[in-house]
């Protein structure tokens, strides 16, 4: 039984790179176990990789932390953080006012525009008028869900909420959605795939709303963990400065996804 438990524990910690320094402090970093390419991808053996995994490991290495990636479903991340199941969230979670009431964030580590993509055979743009009568899919509990409800709620025929963005993309490809709204990079990746190419194209960037869309993606931590928050922020700044960030980003993107420097909070 003991052995069985160990195997399972190892299975749970899929994708943990061997970053552990000799006496690094261990923290559990929550992420939702779903493909969110190119930020989170899973190889055939079930190991997690992708830009955000590499960046998370770089941040942890810099902060002398032994980070254990812990799978928690997306909608359970903040409750899990508050109940100490995990110690930090690094899962493309945007820093918003609404979330800051519950948890704190490190400074941002990337910031990319929000776009709407939709079925190729329909012509419309990413405005409330454009989405009139359309069925729009978003991932639950995201800035996109909040934005869509606020700006498109009155005009869209229906706003469907999915557990994962991958499932929304799947339903868009299956013709059960007219459009989906999410991060430009994640959707760009989908549009570049075979299924994406066949069904859909870019409808445009949504109008800015910093209050809902936030100021970039940061690592979420508990309110009382200010030391950890500062440590992570310092590590993010350090990997920006020492070129590690650029090195990892180069492997995935041909531009810097950090966004404007002035937006750091």
């Amino acid at each position, binding site marked *: 039984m003991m052995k069985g438990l160990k195997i399972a524990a190892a299975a749970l910690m899929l994708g943990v790179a061997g970053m552990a320094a000799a006496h690094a402090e261990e923290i559990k970093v929550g992420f939702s176990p779903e493909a969110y390419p190119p930020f989170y991808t899973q190889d055939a053996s079930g190991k997690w990789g992708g830009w955000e995994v590499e960046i998370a490991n770089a941040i942890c290495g810099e902060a002398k932390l032994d980070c254990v990636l812990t799978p928690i479903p997306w*909608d359970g991340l903040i*409750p899990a953080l508050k*109940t100490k199941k995990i110690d930090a969230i690094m899962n493309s979670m945007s820093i918003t006012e609404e*979330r800051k009431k519950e948890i704190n964030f490190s400074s941002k580590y990337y910031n990319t525009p929000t776009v709407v993509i939709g079925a190729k055979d329909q012509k419309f743009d990413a405005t409330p008028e454009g989405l009139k009568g359309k069925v729009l899919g978003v991932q*639950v*509990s995201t800035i996109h869900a909040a934005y869509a409800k606020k700006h498109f709620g009155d005009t869209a025929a229906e706003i469907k909420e*999915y557990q994962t963005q991958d499932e929304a993309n799947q339903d868009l490809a*299956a013709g*059960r959605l007219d459009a989906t709204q999410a991060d430009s990079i994640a959707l760009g990746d989908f549009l570049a795939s075979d299924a994406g190419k066949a069904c859909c194209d870019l409808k445009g960037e949504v109008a800015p709303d910093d209050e809902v869309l936030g100021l970039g993606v940061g690592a979420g931590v508990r309110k009382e963990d200010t030391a950890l928050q500062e440590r992570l922020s310092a590590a993010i700044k350090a990997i920006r400065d020492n070129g590690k960030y650029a090195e990892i980003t180069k492997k995935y993107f041909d531009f810097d996804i950090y966004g404007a420097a002035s937006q750091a909070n």
Partner: protein
Amino acid sequence: MSSESSVLTAAPRTSAWLQPHRIVLILIAAALVLASVFYMRWDWLPGYLPIAIGGIWRTIWLLLASAGLGIMLAIPLGLVQATGPKILSVPAKTFCTIIRGTPLLLQVWLLYYGLGSLFPQFPWIRESFMWPYLRQAWPYGLLALTLSFAGYEGEVMRGAFAGVARGQLEAARAFGMSRWKIFRRIWLPQAVQRALPTLAGETVLQLKATPLVATITVVDVYAVASRVRQETFVVYEPLLLLALVYLCITGIIVFAFRKVEGRIPTRLG
């Protein structure tokens, strides 16, 4: 109030319901409820009440529709397994085995994401009148719940049909009743009566299965509770209220079945 009563409780059942220890337990329960009302967060409740009621209706509707359609499928499934020729009974048995041998959550996802991803490959499906329905999530949820109920009840009905005394059917035949008439007047009523006690339990199990459709974007009461949790970051309160809602619906189901069973004469043969 302690051990001597444990031997004797059976006889004065009704009058002794309100024993001293029960009053204490009820007081503790009431204190817990009051504490949760005053110390937990309920300020979100008024804002979500309309969609919560909508969600409760959708749950009840899904339950009734899937149980109704499911039992209609289950009767022929049970009948052919009890008496049918091999060519009918083997597929029926296979169907029941597959449904009962795999998790409902997997069936729901297989139908919605698996089957759903095959449809757009056929343009004629997109152009057919069915498409507006196939685009939505609830038909898949209803189908999965119906098939599941049919699979489990098919097994129950098989036992119920097989359990009706042969002599009665022979007697009916001796009276010159037609096969359809025997089925309608003798066999089916007795089988249903035999199945009724398990049916109440199975309907409760079906109720407990309905929240699975929330994973394919059907907005039932469970989905409403999830939405509250995600939008307000209140963790436990929506779940506790949700548990209470299911408890009430279960209570109604049990009560309704007891009424129905009470109206049917207890022993026919």
